[in-house]
């Protein structure tokens, strides 16, 4: 297995994980004309949901843009996003995965990858940037598992020199703690060492 040298020092632990619980399941249909990423953020945030595991299960987009990673030799990072690829609609959603989490400024963030088929029948796939994928006539169908007790928060990762989602506990593990609504960014998770 080939490994890659990152610009920063390898950080430990190599595996980060936080226990959580399933806070329920939602089926959402992002309405025609609403952006898939922004529409999901708005719909989930309006219900006070800060953390969710997202599965794209069907529907269409009126058009789409996506990006994929390309190798980067500038020494600052090992990969960067390439130029966006635009697809003419209607675009069929074959599948996709994503996470609703929290950005560095406390704002909700959705990280989403998808497999799509364009009007020409060609298979596409990559990272979906916000505001570039309006839902098509049949809407975009999404299932979301609400995650209670933990979320993903964006922090700068000095190893890769990129902002990256990190798991973090959302509520203290003990009920008697009076700071229930204050988010802990330290987490209560299990730290794993590599090897």
């Amino acid at each position: 297995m080939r490994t890659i040298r990152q610009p920063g020092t390898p950080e430990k632990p190599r595996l980060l994980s936080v226990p959580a619980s399933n806070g329920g399941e939602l089926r959402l249909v992002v309405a025609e004309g609403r952006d898939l990423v922004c529409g999901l953020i708005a719909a989930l945030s309006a219900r006070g949901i800060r953390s969710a595991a997202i599965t794209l299960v069907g529907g269409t987009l009126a058009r789409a843009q996506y990006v994929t990673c390309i190798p980067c030799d500038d020494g600052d990072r090992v990969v960067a996003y390439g130029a966006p690829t635009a697809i003419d609609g209607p675009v069929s959603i074959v599948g996709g995965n994503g996470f609703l989490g929290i950005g560095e400024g406390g704002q909700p963030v959705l990280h989403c990858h998808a497999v799509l088929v364009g009007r020409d029948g060609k298979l596409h796939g990559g990272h979906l940037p916000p505001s570039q994928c309006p839902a098509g006539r049949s809407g975009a169908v999404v299932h979301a598992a609400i995650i209670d007790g933990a979320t993903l928060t964006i922090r700068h990762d000095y190893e890769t020199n990129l902002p990256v989602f990190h798991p973090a506990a959302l509520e203290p593990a003990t009920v008697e703690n009076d700071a229930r609504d204050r988010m802990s960014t330290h987490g209560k998770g299990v730290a794993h060492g590599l090897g």
Partner: protein
Amino acid sequence: MALAKAPKKPKRAEAPKPALVVAPPPNDERPGTLATLIERGTYGRMLLARVRPNVDLVTGVERICAAHGIRHAVVRSCVGSLVDAALGYGEGDSMTLITVEGPGIEVLTLGGEVRPDEDGKPMATLRGTISDSDASIYGGEFVRGGNPICITLEIALQEWLPESD
């Protein structure tokens, strides 16, 4: 404005009626066929995790489950990237291997489950789709030891609690 008369629809020969589809009997166990395995259970804890660069995808998921004492789990969602990818398709020893060179292979979708191996340790079987820097799409089963994480892997796992366990 006069409307042009629509041309007469050509008469079509009546299509033969499809044969009646009869549902198989409830105990569809013909000689030589194995019974469908059913495992009743419930979902347990969820785990939110990040796997750092150069850790193998499959063994990383197994180690996360082991650290939390989780023997059975299903993947609920996953987003990330790989240095290179190794995917298999087919069955058992005759599985065909595809290797895709990165770095920066995007994991587009991931599904699968974790079950205990013969020694009771969590063993992950993970399948999904990836895209390379040319936006070509590949799919299959992620080969153990062949899928090092590039930047990060975010994953949500949900524990499965079989009644018999």
